[in-house]
């Protein structure tokens, strides 16, 4: 009852693939955090089945696939999952714009945790590039959320 539905794993797989797809250098910095968006989306509408644990798994797989420090993205993703579980009731009734703002805040915190970890292990300080995926993530949220809400009742019937 508390395991995520298979549709979640499907979208998580798609998100993982989108985040490692080889892009030209100029666009690579803009690639939104697909996994974080998928985690927020599912947690928002299925908080009983998708949440902190699934976010952790998604982040860990992302760590392995991108070759980043094992546990760093998992840590940031867990925070995103937790915040969404905490605020899902409020976020569901938000108008779309406000919801996108909340997503922007989650994504900013996600990047803050990553930035913090990089700082601790001695990485260089970031420039403006950090903000690009957040901006594009918010833009991507609107159609993603709409698509999810169209798909949602269909998933329920089958």
């Amino acid at each position: 009852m508390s395991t995520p539905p298979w549709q979640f794993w499907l979208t998580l797989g798609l998100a993982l693939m989108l985040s490692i797809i080889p892009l030209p250098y100029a666009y690579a910095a803009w690639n939104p955090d697909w996994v974080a968006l998928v985690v927020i989306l599912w947690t928002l509408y299925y908080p009983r089945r998708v949440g902190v644990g699934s976010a952790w798994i998604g982040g860990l797989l992302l760590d392995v696939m991108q070759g980043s420090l094992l546990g760093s993205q998992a840590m940031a993703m867990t925070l995103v999952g937790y915040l969404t579980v905490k605020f899902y009731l409020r976020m569901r009734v938000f108008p779309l714009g406000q919801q996108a703002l909340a997503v922007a805040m989650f994504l900013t915190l996600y990047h803050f945790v990553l930035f913090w970890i990089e700082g601790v292990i001695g990485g260089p300080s970031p420039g403006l590039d950090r903000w690009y995926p957040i901006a594009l993530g918010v833009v991507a949220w609107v159609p993603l959320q709409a698509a999810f809400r169209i798909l949602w009742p269909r998933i329920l019937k089958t």
Partner: protein
Amino acid sequence: MAIQSEQHRPLLLRGPSPGSRFLLLWVACILLMVLDHQQNQTQNIRAALSVATYPLQALVNMPFAVGKWAGESLSSRNTLLSENEELRSQVLQQQFQLQKLNALQVENTRLREMMRSAAEVAERILVAEIRSMDLDPYRHRMIINKGSRDGAYAGQAILDAYGVIGQITSAEPLTSRAILITDPSHATPVEINRNGIRTVALGSGDTRELNLPFLPNSTDIQVGDLLVSSGLGGQFPPGYPVGVVFEVLRDPGKNFATVRARPSAQLDRGRQVLLVWFGEPQRVRQATEEEVPE
């Protein structure tokens, strides 16, 4: 499997509270990160998980593979013929150059023997494909599709047709993680090809730039100088192009010149890379014997 209706459920979530789960998982993450960063003891976890994520990486790679296959099977006979001809002439030219090279190599070995220095001529090469590329400005990493099963090892040099790309940081059974020479935390021992001055090229976080911060103002270096790997440090085979200097600024107020170079390797394009075994002939032979038959 259907997702059950959300009706007839209590408003509050059951089970351990998200807060406690969150704290537990964060502790797990911190443990993992400490192990990964300080002792590099997460090889097994990474290896197991990378086998699980391999299908996804293969799927991402598929459009490119299909595109290549389609391009090959759909190209017309004439194109193939002309390409074949071109390749033939290239092979001829290169064989001609190779003859000279062989003679030079023999001569070089002889001279080195006369000078009683160790000649490092034995090299073995394996073609690998890039599975994923992480070009975060502060972390230039990639994953390639050859792993410890193919004989790859941590610290192994990676080249492409034009120069040095980077080195493997950890080899998993099917894939390997590698760091690029432009990663800000990477340093490549180089020498100026023209006069043999040795220095270190640091990554800049930009795939089109390397920094050489340790050259005094009086150093003999010019725009257009070719930097080749010096082989010192034992990570990279000596003599391969690393970059070409495109800017030299000598500020009399500073101790060191500002020198910037463009990497010779095509770091931001191409999907094929070369893994190189070099050094003691014995080690190369060992790697050749261990190779898994295709």
